[in-house]
């Protein structure tokens, strides 16, 4: 098919042909075409199927407000559904597919829905699929989901890069039509930092679409002159293909720039789209206006379009939907379309103007006071029936209808902060109110000033005002003489008596649906929207909302301004998830933190586990080990029998210094710290202010005014934040300073009876770490390996004789290797987080499972630790009655009576013979492990009054998995209950 509907002229480059396909058929267009204009030039009218009734649909508009011509572009990982053909810039090799049809666009089986439209009215789903209730999730919803929805995704990963960026400016100008260009010229010449953004790839807005905007020169001539000047100004940034989609607080705007949507594939290492956050001191909304359709019988056939769009296709893209176009309107602007079409050689059989006083139009017949009452044509309009002013009917053959119900200012961005537009009677449209977002102004058609002259003047005037407010002097530029037609409009929304007259093309909402909503009392606009789905989906009702409101206003007898509008929210047009995600994709979604021994652990073939952002070694499998338990059991036994090493760098470390450091720790820990001697470490428990325990760790005192605090891995950030809160907000008079040093120190636990012997080979000889000189809970600043500064703590999480040794992070890898070498003679073993967990359960140490946000110090068996003699966070409310009942939970150990049984994690404890239900619950299991020392499964858990129930046998149940075993309540300290080993 050649380009049968291509006209002369236009702003396309006919010397640059581009090949593309639509539904597998090959076509040719030109550089400067959109997919829509290229298809139109090739005589394609049918471009999609409607959402609900699968009615054949073609283009309605020429811009981003398009409801009908939604397509799938590209293939594979780049396939993008629901793309408006009107904004898809044509490139060589573009492939597009229609959607929401089967098996083909011409023969869509689902069009059967249209036959049943009587039943598929508004609220159909709500009314029909009510019962049985269980059918909804399993049957109705999946079927409806499959039938509904428009485009599809391939499920493949998007191969392209998306990026985010930040921009700052004095004046952000949104829209580069006559208003925006004149504002940019004004502000650019004044030297202000200007950003001029437009969603189109060609700047100029309606100047590209209207033939006679200026008295004595062409629109494109003026545009290139202005752009030439603006391009030469270093203070002006021009951003085509950039949609400003949202207005946010404090002058921040969100924008998406389509860097490479007009290319088959983005350039290497360049983003396909960029999400911009624009910080503006002032912003000018110059977004123009959107034309509205008229509802009449079967007004949705392909070829029936908005008049301004038909004009734009003819003037800018030299394309016409048909060679014979009827114009239907209620205002003077519709006549401009007829004139421009005729100037391009397109036949206009008649202008049907509902106004009884419609003026004449040279070259065609004006049927004043007439209305369209019916259209014909299965896959595209072939004729219309007109009811003339005298009541007679006339049938007119045509391939297209260009309709205009007037223009609505495109004011979404002015209302993103809950602003409500106000009604302007002379243009019969809503315009922005005075409640604009801070720093924002609006000019031109977006403000309701619809002529080109008003646009030019408004843009320049508002730019001067905005810059003056910033203290920048600006003057009005010379602007060309432009068209200044008054708006001549008689409000007209729908042809009375129509059976099926579309208001919302995208959601298949007709006048009848609005009537039904009214009849069922869904009269508020928000209810109307939700009941009929009016204004939902990709176009957000840009062309449809006002028409439906007008019909509702008519039905309720209220004026339109009183009926109101729904709330405008970002985004203005759909934004791809890829752009919102930016580079935060896959592994880059959050940072990966590696421990200092990571490389070494990888060399050992360690299995890693994600702990927050950290990757930690979980266990170190050896040759021949086929199950993780074999590795873990070995690591535990070897540590308990000789010595093991574990990287514990991930624990939070906070350096606390200052004359009042001791007082400060007293305030943040539940237990007392003031009397801790220098050179000693103490376990510390932190409470929330409500008395619940939330973190534990140690504080080591290196000097009178210097402590090092450790936190759990998970809470490192939170504890630091809370400590800063305590320091700055609660005890601001204390002389104390904090800094997080988690990343600064590599830290290893060295545990087991041979740990001292191993460390003695590492620690420089002038430091005596014998049991006498460096007893349990000691700490010291030392040197290792011949002068490297280090910190040594004699603390134990495993219950063995154990140390933690810290060196500056950059030496972490070397220290690990040195220690493993030094430990060879003791058969040293590296152990991972699993063995760490097994040993702490064997020892009865609480961890995250026990500090689970519901447990108090009392529950954890540390009630006596909470000091009553000082002020600390949480101690007052930890004394609340409800947290101190006699049957309060206590941490206990749990052992199966039959040692071959496995203690299920999360199981609940019931009395041996009583009922198994929530009312008789005695407690629950928090942590479980297989203890290779005890050769039994063991657990920790909370049991009511557990401290008094040692030796009692209870039933441990897990009804979800049908588990039910007898267990014995024992001390949580399975290993070395008297602590002899760790003091050895």
């Amino acid at each position, binding site marked *: 098919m050649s380009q049968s509907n291509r006209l002369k002229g236009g702003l396309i480059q006919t010397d640059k042909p581009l090949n593309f396909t639509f539904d597998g058929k090959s076509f040719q267009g030109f550089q400067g075409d959109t997919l829509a204009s290229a298809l139109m030039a090739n005589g394609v009218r049918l471009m999609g199927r409607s959402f609900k009734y699968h009615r054949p649909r073609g283009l309605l508009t020429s811009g981003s407000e398009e409801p009908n011509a939604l397509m799938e572009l590209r293939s594979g990982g780049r396939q993008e559904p629901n793309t408006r053909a009107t904004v898809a810039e044509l490139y060589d090799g573009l492939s597009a597919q229609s959607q929401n049809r089967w098996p083909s666009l011409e023969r869509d089986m689902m069009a059967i829905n249209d036959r049943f439209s009587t039943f598929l009215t508004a609220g159909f789903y709500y009314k029909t699929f009510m019962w049985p209730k269980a059918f909804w999730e399993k049957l109705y919803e999946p079927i409806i989901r499959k039938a509904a929805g428009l485009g599809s995704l391939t499920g493949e990963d998007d191969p392209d890069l998306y990026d985010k960026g930040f921009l700052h400016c004095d004046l952000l100008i949104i829209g580069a039509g006559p208003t925006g260009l004149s504002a940019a010229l004004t502000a650019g010449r004044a030297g202000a930092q200007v950003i001029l953004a437009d969603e189109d790839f060609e700047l100029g807005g309606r100047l590209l679409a209207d033939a006679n905007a200026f008295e004595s020169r062409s629109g494109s001539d003026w545009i290139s002159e202005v752009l030439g000047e603006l391009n030469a100004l270093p203070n002006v940034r021009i951003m085509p293909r950039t949609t400003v989609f949202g207005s*946010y*607080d*404090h*002058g*921040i705007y969100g924008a998406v720039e389509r860097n490479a949507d007009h290319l088959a594939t983005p350039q290497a290492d360049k983003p396909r789209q960029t999400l911009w956050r624009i*910080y503006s001191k002032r912003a000018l909304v110059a977004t123009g206006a959107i034309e509205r359709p008229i509802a009449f019988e079967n007004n949705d056939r392909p070829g029936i379009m908005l008049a301004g769009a038909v004009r734009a296709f003819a003037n800018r893209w030299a394309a016409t939907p048909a060679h014979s176009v009827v114009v239907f309107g209620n205002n003077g602007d519709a006549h401009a379309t007829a004139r421009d079409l005729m100037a391009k050689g397109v036949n206009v059989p008649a202008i049907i103007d509902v106004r009884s006083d419609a003026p004449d139009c040279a070259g065609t017949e004006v049927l004043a006071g007439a209305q369209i009452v019916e259209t014909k044509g299965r896959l595209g309009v072939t004729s219309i029936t007109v009811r003339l002013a005298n009541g007679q009917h006339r049938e007119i053959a045509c391939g297209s209808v260009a309709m205009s119900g007037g223009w609505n200012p495109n004011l979404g961005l002015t209302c993103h*902060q809950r602003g409500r537009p106000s009604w302007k009677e002379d243009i019969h449209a809503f315009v922005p109110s005075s409640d604009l977002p*801070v720093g924002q102004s609006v000019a031109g058609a977006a403000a309701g000033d619809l002529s080109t002259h008003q646009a030019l003047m408004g843009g320049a005037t508002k730019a001067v005002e905005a810059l003056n407010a910033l203290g920048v002097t600006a003057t009005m530029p010379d602007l060309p003489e432009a068209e200044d037609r008054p708006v001549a409009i008689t409000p007209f929304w729908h042809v009375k008596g129509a059976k099926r007259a579309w208001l919302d093309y995208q959601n298949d909402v007709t006048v009848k649906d609005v009537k039904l909503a009214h009849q069922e009392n869904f009269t508020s606009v928000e209810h109307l929207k939700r009941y009929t789905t009016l204004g939902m989906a990709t176009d957000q009702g840009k062309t449809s909302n006002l028409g439906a409101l007008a019909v509702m206003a008519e039905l309720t007898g209220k004026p339109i301004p009183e009926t109101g509008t729904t709330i405008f929210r970002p985004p203005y047009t759909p934004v791809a998830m890829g752009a919102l995600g930016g580079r935060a994709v896959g592994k880059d979604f959050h940072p990966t933190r590696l421990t200092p021994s990571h490389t070494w652990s990888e060399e050992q073939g360690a299995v890693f586990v994600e702990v927050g952002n950290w990757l930690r070694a979980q266990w170190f499998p050896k040759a021949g080990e086929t199950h993780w338990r074999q590795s873990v059991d070995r690591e535990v036994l070897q540590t308990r029998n000789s010595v093991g090493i574990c990287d514990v760098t991930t624990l939070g470390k906070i350096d606390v210094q200052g004359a009042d450091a001791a007082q400060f720790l007293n305030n943040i820990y539940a237990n007392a710290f003031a009397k801790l001697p220098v050179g000693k470490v103490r376990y510390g428990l932190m409470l929330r*202010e*409500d008395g619940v325990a939330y973190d534990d760790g140690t504080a080591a005192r290196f000097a009178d005014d210097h402590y090092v605090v450790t936190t759990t891995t998970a809470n490192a*950030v939170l504890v630091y*934040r809370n400590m*800063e*809160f305590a320091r*700055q*907000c*609660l005890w*601001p*008079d204390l002389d104390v300073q904090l800094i997080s040093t988690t990343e600064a120190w590599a830290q290893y636990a060295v545990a087991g009876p041979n740990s001292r012997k191993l460390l003695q080979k590492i620690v420089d000889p002038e430091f005596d770490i014998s049991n006498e000189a460096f007893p349990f809970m000691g700490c010291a600043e030392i040197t290792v390996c011949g002068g490297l500064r280090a910190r040594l703590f004699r603390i134990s999480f495993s219950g063995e004789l154990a140390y933690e040794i810290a060196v500056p992070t950059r030496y972490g890898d070397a220290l690990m290797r040195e220690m493993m070498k030094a430990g060879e003679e003791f058969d040293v073993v590296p152990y991972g987080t699993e063995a760490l967990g097994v040993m702490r359960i064997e020892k009865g140490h609480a961890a995250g499972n026990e500090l689970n946000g519901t447990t108090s110090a009392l529950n954890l068996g540390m009630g006596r630790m909470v000091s009553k003699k000082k*002020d600390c966070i949480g*101690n*007052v*409310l930890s*004394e*609340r009655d409800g947290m101190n009942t006699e049957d309060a939970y206590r941490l206990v150990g749990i052992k199966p009576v039959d040692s071959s049984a496995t203690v299920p994690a999360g199981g609940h404890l019931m009395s041996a013979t009583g009922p198994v239900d929530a009312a008789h619950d005695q407690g629950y299991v928090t942590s479980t492990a297989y203890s290779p020392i005890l050769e039994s499964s063991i657990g920790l858990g909370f049991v009511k009054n557990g401290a008094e129930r040692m030796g009692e046998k209870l039933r441990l149940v897990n009804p979800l998995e049908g588990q039910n075993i007898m267990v014995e309540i024992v001390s949580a300290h399975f290993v070395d209950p008297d602590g002899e080993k760790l003091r050895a």
Partner: protein
Amino acid sequence: MIINHPLLGPRDAQEFTYLGDASLLDRPDWQVPDAAQAFHDYLYLRDNPAGDHRELWFHEQGDRSWLVVTRNTLTHEILNVELARDVAKARRAAQ
């Protein structure tokens, strides 16, 4: 939103962590006779005004200052930003 940090100038709200009502600065005396009630009120009772609200923000991705930000909850207009430490010290001095 942009928060005008008293030391660092205008900063994007993304750099901050939000806590809530600045009444959390008014931690009661632990030794008063009705301390449990006072702490209950301090911890659980908050005003939720539609309008000006003094609230605590932490510059976690910045200099780690806690700030008292006076923000209109209806318009998000920020009327005042102070270092929480200065506010807390002034309160203590006044008591």
